[in-house]
Structure formats: C-alpha cells, structure tokens
C-alpha cells in the first residue's frame, strides 16, 4: 500500500469518501440561492487529496498512483461539469483518460474509463456538439464489449481505489455497478441517436436500456411498465407489431408484479392507489391502440380502391403468410427481447393471448377485436365520463373504431349495419351530453363521425335494397331516415362554426375550411340521394342540393385560396351546379307538360 504524506492512507480515503458524500448526497439539500455549495466543498476536498497524492509521487508504484490520480481527475471533471464549468471539466476528464489509456482494458481501469467517456459525452452534448458526444459514447460501448469478450470478470468500481482492503466490494456488487455504468452509456446513446434523428437506433437503445433495467433489477415496476407500454406505441407507428406486443406483454406482467407487492410508497395514500389504477388503465389504452392498429393495417392491405375487402388480395396474402411463417420465427430471435429474466414465461403466455400478424378474415379479426374490446372495458373502469370526459371519449372513439374495422371484415351487410349501429349507440349519447363550449373540438369530431356512420349505414341499406326485387316502402323509409340523420350531424358540425351571435362565418379559418366544405358537399349529395315518389318533394330536394353545391362554388370564387383545400369537391360541385338546373327543368316540364 502506498504511503501517503502525514495524514496516512486512511485519512486520504476518508477525505475522498466525504467529498463523494458531499457531492452526491449533501448537494441535493443546497439552497437555491447557493446551489453548488456542497459541490464546491467537495471540490476543495478532492484537490486536497490530489495534493497529498502528488507529495508521495516518487518511489511508489507508478501505475497504482496513475490510476488513483485518474480517479481524482474523473471526480474533479464531473464536479466541474456539474457546476457548469465545462472547459475545466473537460480538461480533468481528458487527463483522466490519458492516465488510463494504456490500462483501459484491465479490471481496475475499465469501469472508470467508460464512466469518463460517458461524462465527456454528456459534456459535449451540453455544448451542442452531438457528433462528438456520439464518438465518446460509442467508444465506451465498444470498450465494454471488448472487455466482456476478452476478460469478463467483474471489474473494480472506481471508488474502490480509495478504500481499505477490507472494505472492497464483492464481485456481485462490482458487476452491478459496472453494468449500471454501461446501461447509462446505452441510455445516453439512445438520446444521442434521437437528436441525430436516427430514430430506429434510438428506439433500439431505449429498448435495450429497459431490458437491462429489468435484468439488473434497477427499476420501479410501475414506471418501467409504463415506459415499456409507451415504447410499444413507437413500434406501432412503425408497424412492428411483434415488438409492440412484446413490450405490452412485458408491461402488463411487470405491472402486475407491482400490484402484488404493495411497497410502502405505493400503498400509502388514496392518491397513490388512484395513480396505480390510472397507470393500469393507461396500459390498457396502449393495448387498445395495438389491437386497433393491427386491424386497421390489415384493412389497408386488404381493401380495394373503394374500401371494400378485395378477395384476390385476401387469397394472395394468405398464401404469402403460409410461406413466411417459418421465417417469422427467425425474425423473432433477432429482435431485442425481455427474455433473460424470470418473467420470460409470463410474457410469452401474455403474448399468446393476441396475434401479432395481420388478420386476413373475419374470424381472425374478431379475435383481435375481442381482446381490444376487453381493454376498452378495463380502461373505462378508471376513465369514467364523470371526471375524465376527454379520456373517456377518446376510449369510446377507439371502441367505435374497433367496430368500424370489424365491420370491414364482415361479409353480411345486415350484420355489418348492426355493427355501425353499435357505434351510433355509443357515440350519440356522449355527443348530446357534451357542452361544446368546453369540448368544442371533441364534439366536432363526434358530430363528423356520427354523420359519417349514418352515411355508411344508409349506403349499406341501399346495397341491401338493390339486391331485392324491388324497393319496399320500409327500406325506403329506413334509407331516408338514415340520410336525414347524417344530414343532421353535418349540420350540427356546421352550426358549431357559428359565432356566439349564431352567425355563420363569412370567411372560414384554415383549420376548419376543409371539414366545413366537406360537410357542405356531403349534405348536397345526401339531398340528392333522398328517395321520394312525390315529384314536388324531389324538386325541393334537388333545389336544396343545388344550394349546397353552389355554396362551394361561390365560396371558392370569392376566396380563391380555398380551392387548394377542396379541388376535387369543387370540380364535382361545379359540374353539378351546371347539370342540376337542367335536370330540374326536365322534371318540371314533366310535371306540367302543357306549360
């Protein structure tokens, strides 16, 4: 052991330890007016230790001393960075690395070297030089991998260089600290990649960070579960359903662990219980989105150019799937999985409850739909309309969307119609009880969706009617009433644009321009579709239809900027404005042929 100055090695170690405590524990209590008080005291102590080491420099084992000095340089570097003195921080960290360079792969240096590089990464990111940060962090990552390949024994923790022999850490503790440092490297890299817009890589590193938290038990279950669930939503947007499901399954499993072991902090108050229930509901909502996206993506693959299921596409995809089934297994092995830990089996069991491949027929779609619907119920238990209006409605909208996509897979028109009716039944009551003064956007969405759904139902009834020998009065009545409801909701939407004095705006704001025009356009069409044997009534409907088409044409003439938003609708409206009067004239001529 190196002999040091007058105060002895034990004294040096004590000073070092005090400095560390000041820096990591005491500094949190510093007053806002003097935020770095403890950091400055720690720095003074570290410099003292450095002096004591220098005094004993000669004659001692040079390597041991170099490593100890590197530890001090590291601590000083971090200290300066923490107190916003980046240049000084950088110098210390660089010196640390120079001292360690020759020994960086040995067990007493590797951890410190990685941590120095981590801190240089942070430092350069603070200077907005993200590429430089990336270099340091990637080098740290490579060093870890090389060390694990060549040696792999739990390396020393930097603090051990200032510890008496009997205090030294166990291998288990060493490994834990080393792995934690590396986990941080990966986490910082995740952020670096995100800034560099290497999004896929960023996600992969987030995923690995989560995985390592799980493996080394460095996590809070609820928080971890929520993070995994959030990551699943990233994978959804990339259409990576297997990865998304894996994250969600792991989230659910880890979350249920949290529920089983109520820790002191989790169980203390009502508020915490409430939070826990909310988290559970939030994970359920992530599952809903999973089911919905999987179904909708399948629909996109299967639909023809008018949104109907294309049977040729269906056969083709079924054949393709058969071929790919074996390759899928291989793909799974490549992905990052939360597989190393004891939750592996539970996660697998969870995953088996819902498919991660595109459903290609009604039966397959229905299974996913049912899983989604269960999560809708679970989420609604917490997000009740009384207290959580917005959340509740968003869940109901998802539920409605689940029915909508299921209807796509349904071949039977009558049953399909019933599914849309279910949507109406869930959306209509909410829409009517909502005060648009406080929920304007959401009530507009609901109005539009209701109009759209009634329109769909009307379309289906027409299609059903077309299969009959002749349209019976009951079907005609039904068709007309559905069309009237669709008109009603488009009108409600348009009314929501009126100002408090109930006047429809002269100029439509850009954000509502297209929806408003589309609503007008659809109403025009709907009046054209109303069925009546009364020619006079028919003329009236045509007249109303014409007025709505004319609105579009006139508006665009007055405000040519609007044309861009509704080109197709405008083109068709112009045609109709040209054709309808002639048609009406003919009808009138037929009504009174002698005039």
């Amino acid at each position: 052991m190196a002999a040091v100055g007058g105060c002895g090695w034990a004294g040096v170690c004590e000073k070092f330890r005090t400095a560390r405590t000041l820096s990591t524990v005491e500094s949190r209590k510093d007053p806002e007016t003097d935020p770095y008080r403890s950091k400055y005291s720690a720095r003074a102590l570290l410099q003292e230790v450095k002096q004591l080491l220098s005094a004993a420099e000669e004659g001692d084992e040079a390597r041991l001393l170099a490593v100890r000095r590197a530890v001090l340089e590291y601590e000083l570097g971090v200290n300066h960075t923490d107190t916003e003195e980046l240049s000084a921080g950088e110098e210390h960290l660089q010196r640390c690395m120079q001292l360690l360079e020759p020994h960086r792969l040995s067990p007493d240096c590797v951890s410190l070297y990685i941590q120095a590089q981590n801190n240089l990464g942070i430092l350069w990111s603070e200077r907005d030089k993200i590429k430089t940060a990336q270099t340091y962090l990637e080098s740290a990552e490579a060093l870890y991998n090389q060390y694990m390949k060549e040696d792999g024994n739990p390396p020393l923790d930097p603090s051990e260089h200032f510890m008496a022999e009997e205090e030294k850490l166990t291998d288990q503790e060493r490994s834990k600290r080393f792995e934690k440092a590396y986990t941080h490297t990966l986490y910082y890299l995740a952020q670096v990649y995100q800034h560099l817009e290497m999004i896929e890589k960023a996600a992969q590193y987030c995923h690995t960070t989560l995985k390592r938290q799980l493996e080394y038990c460095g996590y809070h279950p609820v928080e971890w579960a929520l993070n995994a669930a959030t990551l699943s939503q990233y994978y959804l947007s990339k259409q990576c359903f297997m990865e998304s499901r894996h994250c969600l399954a792991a989230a659910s499993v880890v979350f249920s662990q949290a529920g089983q072991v109520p820790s002191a902090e989790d169980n203390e108050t009502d508020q915490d219980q409430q939070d826990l229930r909310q988290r559970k509901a939030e994970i359920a909502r992530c599952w809903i989105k999973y089911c919905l996206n999987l179904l909708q993506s399948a629909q996109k693959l299967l639909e023809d150019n008018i949104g109907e299921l294309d049977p040729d596409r269906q056969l083709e995809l079924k054949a393709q799937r058969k071929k790919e089934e074996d390759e899928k297994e291989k793909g799974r092995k490549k992905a990052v999985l939360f597989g190393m830990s004891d939750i592996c089996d539970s996660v697998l069991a969870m995953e088996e409850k819902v498919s991660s491949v595109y459903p290609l027929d009604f039966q397959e779609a229905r299974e996913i739909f049912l899983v989604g619907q269960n999560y809708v119920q679970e989420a609604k238990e917490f997000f009740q309309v009384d207290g959580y209006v917005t959340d509740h409605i968003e869940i109901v909208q998802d539920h409605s969307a689940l029915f909508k996509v299921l209807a796509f897979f349904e071949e039977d028109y009558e049953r399909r119609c019933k599914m849309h009716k279910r949507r109406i039944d869930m959306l209509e009551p909410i829409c009517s009880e909502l005060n648009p003064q406080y929920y304007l956007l959401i009530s507009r969405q609901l109005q539009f969706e209701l109009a759209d759904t009634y329109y769909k139902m009307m379309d289906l009834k027409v299609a059903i009617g077309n299969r009959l020998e002749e349209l019976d009065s009951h079907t005609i009545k039904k068709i007309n009433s559905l069309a009237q409801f669709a008109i009603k909701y488009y009108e409600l939407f348009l009314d929501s644009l009126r100002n408090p004095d109930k006047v429809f705006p002269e100029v439509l704001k850009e954000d509502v321009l297209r929806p408003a025009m589309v609503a007008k356009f659809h109403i025009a069409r709907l009046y054209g579709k109303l069925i009546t044997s009364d020619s006079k009534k028919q003329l009236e409907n045509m007249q109303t239809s014409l007025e709505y088409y004319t609105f579009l044409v006139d508006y665009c003439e007055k405000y040519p900027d609007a044309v861009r938003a509704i080109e197709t609708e405008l083109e068709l409206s112009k045609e109709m404005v040209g054709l309808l009067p002639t048609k009406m004239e003919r009808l009138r001529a037929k009504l009174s042929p002698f005039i």
Partner: protein
Amino acid sequence: MCSLFRESAEGGRVIVEVDGKVAKIRNIKVDSRLDSTWDSREKTVAFSFDYCYWSVDPEDPKYASQEMVFQDLGTSVLSGAFRGYNICLFAYGQTGSGKTYTMMGTPVSYSIHFTLRGLFARKDDYADQTASCRVKVSFLEIYNERVRDLLKQSDQKKPYTLRVREHPETGPYVQGLTQHLVTDYKQVVELLEEGIAKRITAATHIHNASSRSHAIFTIHYTQAILENNLPSEIASKINLVDLAGSERADPSYCKDRITEGANINKSLVTLGIVISTLAQNSQMFSSCQSINTITSEGDSSHADSPSTSSVSGTRRPAYIPYRDSILTWLLKDSLGGNSKTIMIATISPASSSYNETMSTLRYASNAKNIINKPRVNEDANVKLIRELREEIDRLKTMLMSFELVRRNTSQLDDDRDGNLTELVLQNEMKVCMSYLML
C-alpha cells in the same frame, strides 16, 4: 400572442430590439466561467408575435405605456367575454427583482383590475335593463402539480389537495374549489389581495414556492338574456394565468428541453421522457403519411396539397401515456376553438438576462403550438366522390341524348316524334331509378 419589454437595461448592454411585430435578440455571449474569454459568436435570433411593445424608455417614440398595453388587451378580453367566448390570458416571463412574491404589479394583476372594472362598469350600465349578469371568482395555485385554493382557509400541513376533474356539461374544474359571488369591484380587489397574501405566506413556508407555482384567477361571467322571448344564459369564463417565473416549474420543461437543446438527460428516471418523445415524433411522422394515403385515395391531384393534410387526417394512431400538466388540463377549454387566448411574455432587454429572455421567448413561441386543431374523419368522402362522378357522367349522357333527340325530332314528322320522346323518357326513368338505388 405578444411580448413586452419593460425592465430597464440594468444588466448592461441592450440586446433586444423591436421591429414591428418581431423581437430580435442579439447574442453577445459573455462566458462567465473562470477559464474562458469572450465568445466571439454574435448572432441574432428573431421571434414573431402579434404585437410587440417597447416599454423601456418613455422618451422613445416607440414607447408603450402600461396603460396603453392593457387598454389594448383588456378591451379584447372584455368584448370576447360579453359575447360568450372563453378567454385565457397568460403572463409569462421573468418578474422584476423584488416583485417575485407578488402578483401585484404584474401583467396579470393589471389585466384583472382592468377586466373587472370593465365588467362592473357594464353591469352598472345595464342594471335596469333586461340583461343582468352574475360574476363569480375563484383563485387557485398550482405547485408541483398539486392544487390549492387561495381563497379558503386550508389545512396548513396539506394545503395542496384539490383534484382536477372534467364535467361533460361544465368543463374542466377543480373539485372543492370555492367560488365567490361578487357584486362590485371592491369585493374582487379584496379577494384578490386575500389570495395574494396567502401566496406570500406560503412562500415563506415552502421553499421559494411562488416563483415555481402558477396562479389562476378565474372569473365566471354569466349574463341572463332573453332569446326569442325565452330566458337564456350566456356563460363565459375568463382565466387570468400567472405562469411560474421559473421554467423548472413547468412539468414539460424536460420534454421541451430534449426536443430543443441536445442536452442528455443523465438519470434513468427520465427514460420515460425520452421514450415518449420518441413515440410522439414517430407518430407525427406516421400520421402525416396516413393523411397522404387518404387524400391520394380520394384524388391523386390532392396528394401534395399542403392545406389538405393540415385539416383532414385521422385521429391519433397511438396513445402516449403522458399526463398533461394540471395547468394544461385546466385550461384546455380555453385553448383553441371558440376561445380567445392571449399570451403576454415580458422580457428584459439587458444583455445580462440573455438566457432568461431566450427561454421566455421560446416558451411564448411554443405556446402557439399548444392550441389544438380539429381532426375529423373523412372516410365517406372517397366513395361519395366516386359515386358522384358516375352520376355526373350519367346525367351528362342523359342530357346529351335528350338534346340529340330534340334536334332529330324537329326534322321528323309528328307521329314518330311522339314515339321517340316516349322512348327517351322511358330510358331516362330507368337511369333515374338506378341512380336512386345507388
């Protein structure tokens, strides 16, 4: 959205200039670190606002007095409220030295005074007419995502216990928050002062609370009116929000930072922020894509029409379980839609305040983006357009054949004319029927 410069340039050179609706900030970065020298980088950053006021030097021709500023703003608040709009007025920015603990003398208190004087002045005018109105006020503070009532004696140990909720009929609210019916201006001032006093006392208990807390003074304004001879009400809500001086009080602080600066979050505790940013960004990207799909299905000529994609589109494809801050939650009915939002950012023109000024302007600039845009579904459109095209073609054919027949018939004798017209009419009826069936 406006910004206001009112501090004098105590901290050295003036680095801000106002040019119409643009505020320009020069960066003459003095590095205060021991080991560094002057940074030679000098760059100008410009932020656009609806109004910029310059209140530094009364001699300056551009000088805007406080009275003038709040005359401008207060008037628009009032006229909106009378017509039933929800109004939200934010004030954000560094508070001048010595004013940290008080809302008095801040833009919010000026606007409260101005607004209320206006409301009651109008009330007096109309006192004997058919319109009568009711004014209720409440005053709350949000600290560390917890809410407390500033107008109610509460438990000293646990003052921040109120819950935020939403009601389908009456919108977002704070459960248990007291509302005080007021009938004249003096009463409101008393309540305001009471609340402010409470905030100051708290500040001595809780570590520097007021610079990290938001305060919302809400005026519920209800006018009883006769509409078509039936009694009816116009209700509006005016929120006057004093945003925390310290940006650290903002829970989205980290989230913003990570998207703006490149700074790495050091602690794994922030992993959630990193992941949600990731999910959010990719979602924006993917939803843009899906909008393109929709429009290109509708009509290919639309695919690159930017205005189309900004208004149409689908609902959020994914769910990011990140809770809105309580502030956002409470004000969501006041942001966008039938509401008027005013944001006042006050900044100092002095070079010593560069960092705070930048972050204030950035915050104010970002605030424009929190206003929600409506998203509606247009699924029916594709099919409708296709059908309508077919109908137009049918109509054209029909009318054309009619023209043709008319021209031909004029050359033919009466006998055959009758038959042909009959024939055409029959054809047309068929066309009409099949179109009805569609």
